[in-house]
């Protein structure tokens, strides 16, 4: 066992961190604000990252990456997530849409879709959830009819982040065979978002207007060469993709940064000696520490070539509940003015904690709810019997 990054890895972290400190402006608070500078900024930053070879460093050399170790990838995720993910929507391309294309795509699809991702030029969104298919994702009903050289798609997707950014492409999950058992009749399509018949409607949320969208699909034509993987075998891709996604975000890194902000705030406010504040923040720190180590355990398994399905769910249980706890305790320490938002001159810590609490209300839902994670741990990890 070794609980330290190597000197080379630490040097890389310093280089990346210095670059980001210089490039990420003070006003940046992530993608889902009303700030119109956000999208141009993230596009520009991704181009600079691509120039340095840092955007796709995790990708294998045959797809334009440098095959960086899983630990360097972890460092990138930590430094990015600690700064509210200045790569914007690109992290999805890098973490799992790209890898899914590499694993399941044809050579033609590789040539067509991977280079623009590697340059950080293209925005993808993910069309999975439907109004009646959330935790029970496999019950989705958006229909793709096979018309030979193309499919005709009709249905509705929901909770689609970045669709209004606007996204260029959508990784779309459809029912291609309604007579097969529900997991066996699903396909994955690569949908050009400029195709006629697509309507995007933003959903206003507690965290602002740009976090989620509904996507309506009316007689949308998708060419057959945009089918990813085998027809009716889309569920295999979902399983592979969700495993990439669960450890693909260093949620603990942002929580750790917010805890640092709160420690400074408490000291400045004369609360550094307050026994209750001390107790609360130390508790958060131990939970942050645990969440981080459990992510590192999953990454250690990936380094050996194993797929940490159950371990990723355990890590996620800790990470998402940590985020929520940090938000709650943070607002408690700030007191009544914690209600004030970014932009209000009386908002403590520039409204940062308010925003952090708000945006983490659904963190125990996204990417598989807390209950779904517990089911995975109980059934696949502990071997408990399934519900009848």
């Amino acid at each position: 066992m070794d609980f330290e990054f190597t000197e080379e890895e630490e040097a890389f972290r310093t280089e990346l961190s210095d670059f980001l400190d210089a490039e990420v402006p003070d006003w940046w608070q992530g993608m889902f604000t009303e700030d119109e500078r956000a999208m141009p900024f993230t596009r520009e930053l991704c181009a600079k990252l691509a120039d340095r070879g840092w955007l796709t460093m995790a990708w294998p050399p045959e797809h334009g990456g440098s095959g960086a170790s899983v630990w360097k990838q972890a460092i990138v995720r930590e430094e990015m997530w600690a700064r509210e993910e200045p790569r914007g929507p690109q992290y999805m391309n890098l973490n799992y849409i790209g890898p899914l294309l590499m694993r399941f795509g044809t050579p033609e699809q590789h040539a067509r879709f991977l280079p623009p991702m590697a340059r950080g030029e293209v925005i993808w969104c993910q069309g999975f959830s439907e109004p009646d298919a959330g935790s029970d994702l496999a019950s989705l009903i958006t229909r793709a009819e096979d018309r030979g050289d193309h499919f005709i798609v009709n249905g509705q997707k929901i909770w689609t982040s970045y669709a209004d950014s606007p996204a260029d492409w959508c990784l779309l999950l459809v029912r291609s065979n309604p007579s097969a058992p529900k997991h066996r009749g699903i396909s994955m399509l690569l949908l050009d978002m400029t195709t006629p018949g697509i309507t995007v409607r933003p959903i206003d949320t507690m965290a602002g207007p740009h976090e989620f969208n509904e996507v309506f699909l009316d007689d949308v034509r998708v060419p057959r060469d945009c089918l990813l993987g085998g027809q009716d075998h889309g569920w295999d891709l979902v399983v592979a993709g969700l495993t990439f996604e669960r450890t693909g975000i260093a949620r603990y890194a942002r929580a750790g940064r917010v805890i640092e902000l709160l420690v400074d705030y408490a000291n400045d406010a004369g609360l550094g000696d307050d026994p209750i504040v001390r107790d609360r923040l130390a508790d958060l720190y131990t939970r942050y520490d645990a969440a981080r180590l459990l992510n590192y355990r999953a990454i250690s398994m990936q380094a050996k070539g194993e797929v940490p399905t159950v371990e990723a769910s355990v890590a996620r249980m800790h990470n998402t509940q940590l985020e929520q706890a940090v938000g709650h305790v943070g607002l408690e320490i700030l007191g009544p003015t914690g209600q004030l938002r970014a932009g209000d001159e009386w908002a403590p810590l520039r409204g940062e904690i308010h925003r952090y609490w708000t945006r983490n209300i659904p963190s125990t839902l996204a990417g598989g709810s807390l209950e779904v994670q517990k089911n995975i741990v109980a059934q696949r990890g502990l071997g408990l019997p399934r519900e009848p």
Partner: protein
Amino acid sequence: MNLELSDEQRLLADTARAFVDRHADDADPWPAMRDTGWAGLLVPEEHGGSGAGMTEFVLVCEALGRGPVVSPLIPSVTAALALRWAGTPDLQDQWLPTLATGAFTGTVAVLEAGMRDEWSPAPMSGLGALTGTKVLVPWVPDVAVIVVVTSEGLRVVERSGAVRVHDHDPLCAEPHAALTFQQAPAERLGSTADSAVVLARVLDYNAVARLAYAIGAAERALELSVDHATNRHQFGRPIGTFQAVAHRCAEMRADVDACRYLAYRAAWALDHDADAAIAVTAAKSFANDAMRRVFLHAHQVHGAMGFATEHELHRYTRVAKSFELSLGGTTRHRDRLATEIGLGSRP
């Protein structure tokens, strides 16, 4: 960074598991344990030990907690650590080789009535021969050497008629005693200033060893809970098919895993002298609360049977509660951690 055990560490853990399978029900497992060399894991080779690290010792303790195998291993190794770090060459020659082979056992006497916890100042005077009473001292009848915490630092007392033993009947299965010293001859173990540093380290090592032992107990409690949830039927189905039950087990898994990696990291930090204080105190304070949650779930899943002493669950529950109550409660460790993460008064 690599959180996987090495092949040697895995082998050691497997050996310890096999030992537990064979000896968990022995009336006295110590003779068998002497042959394993574990008592000498943290004793340097020149004193007859194997000079291994805390990580190795933690793997052994974790396996023993699964039994739970009740033995003087942890207190005896803890006494050896104090002698190793603060003893004169003569004291080391006198005690370390026999402690390393397990021919003799040692213990550490810290608590006195009125002390809040092991970190509070000890009232017993260390000037001259020792007089006074230590409580909750891990004890077996043939303990040969006692490391005693006094207000003037650490002292070494050889077992003699000047030490009267009153057996406790504590929560945990490990035998403990109150020791009354009556003008007991004592040798100084390091200067007063060194003693404070050594004692803090000894307590940190002891806390991590006890934590590992509790993690073994918690892992076993989880296995028992999963067995019970799988085999116990109510309403015509295994109770583990109800999410209310299954999710308790999943939460136990998540908490035990967190405790385990916090403990491994603390052991690593002690071995590498890298931010050990923050690593130990984070592990102890997280685990204190996590053990409560784990055993709350274990008892809830087991139903009334878990309360009956004919079922084995209670043995593990006792290990965990005893761990929580020893070596600093959650509040104490969080306060220490708060300072470590930078909370304090501004000038």
